């Protein structure tokens, strides 16, 4: 059995998690490499969780949030946007391919977009190979 990437996805309850649900009910398929963790808002995502995912064996991390202006909590996704940008830059700075941390604004009605985004991410991570840096041994 060839290697399959494992990607952890932090999906915000109101938009991207609902979108993932819609993808399923619409009978659209998307790769099962994504392990979903539901959070109430993308603003809840602690950058340290991303590092922890890599330590525990994830090959990629995905963060899904509401479109700017549509956050259920008004501004959570704006805070997340700043944090993620700095985190991504820092990861790239120490030699971790930024493609391993991806994010998307996916509203609850965008089931198709969700599937597309995940499909693309899995393809990209497959091309990069397993993530070994920072892995706990």
């Amino acid at each position, binding site marked *: 059995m060839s290697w399959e990437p494992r990607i952890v996805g932090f999906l915000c309850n109101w938009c991207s998690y609902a979108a993932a649900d819609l993808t399923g009910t619409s009978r659209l398929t998307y790769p099962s490499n994504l392990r979903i963790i539901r959070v109430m808002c993308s603003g809840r995502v602690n950058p340290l969780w991303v590092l922890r995912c890599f330590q525990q064996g994830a090959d990629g991390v995905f963060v899904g949030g509401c479109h700017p202006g549509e956050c259920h909590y008004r501004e959570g996704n704006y805070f997340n946007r700043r944090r993620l940008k700095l985190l991504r830059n820092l990861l790239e700075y120490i*030699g971790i391919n930024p493609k391993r941390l991806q*994010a998307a604004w996916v509203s609850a009605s965008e089931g198709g977009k969700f599937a597309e985004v995940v499909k693309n991410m899995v393809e990209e991570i497959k091309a990069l190979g397993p993530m070994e840096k920072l892995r706990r041994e």
Partner: protein
Amino acid sequence: MASVEEKLREKTGQLLNEGKVKCVIGYERVGPLKARPFFARSPADARKIHYSLLCSPNLAVYLTLEEISAGEKIGLVVKGCDSRAVVQLLQEGIVDREKVVLLGVPCQGIIDLEKLEDELDKREVLLSSVKEISIEDEVAKVETKDGTIQLDRKDVVHDVCINCQHPTPVLHDVLLGEEVKPWGEENYGDVKEIENMDLRERWDYWEEKFEKCIRCYACREACPLCYCEECLADKTVPTWVRKSVRVSENGFFHLMRTLHLAGRCVGCGACERSCPMGIPLLKLFRKMEKDVKELFGREAGMDVGQKPLLATFSLEDPEEFIK
């Protein structure tokens, strides 16, 4: 004209004599090439206060480390970067401005003994023969037992001091010297050195550095902005960082500190200077400093009224990476 040190001693003596402060935290000289923090409590102590290019630690750290009893007013000697750390602490509501008297001293840079030794080696002079060092404009005058040598300032001060943009304290109750202007533009050459490497080289570089770390936490303890009563690195419930000293845990610790200091670090370099293993920590913190400046137009430790970086946002924040 009185030197900065003389003025500092006088002011310290005055504050202590008049009972205006319980103590003054400054530096004392303990060797020809060594100075260390010093708590002056009496007028006699005031005479021991020292100020020179050897004054390496950031004294603002004592504002949060020291068990300064409630109601006690203290004096604090601050260089340019130290004063910015105090501003940042004020921004975050950690320090009561009324309880600290800031004795500002303009700074010519902190001597990097390793760089100095290299320069002296080239001239076959021993580091142990050095008696005094002073800097004026861009020239470092090194007095040894056998004469005076002139060196380029850039070759004897710490790399981070070379293009310091705030050598004169930005906040002070009294300034005990002439204002010092920056010597050049900040070019983040140390950060660009890493940015010019490809991903593979970058990881090889940082993996080697993380491997060296012995988790003594000197970097964290020396930093004035690391003041959490319980650091995430020490918490066991939950365990953020394991006790094992390995690349994955050390890397996590340093990346965590870098993220927690993004937009807060003032680039004083106390962390890197305290690291016994010589890990180039500033390269991490200054990367954040550079990005924060370029992406969000912000600088730490300048404006007491500024809202914290990550507790604010702009509708125009970059999001080109978000699908």
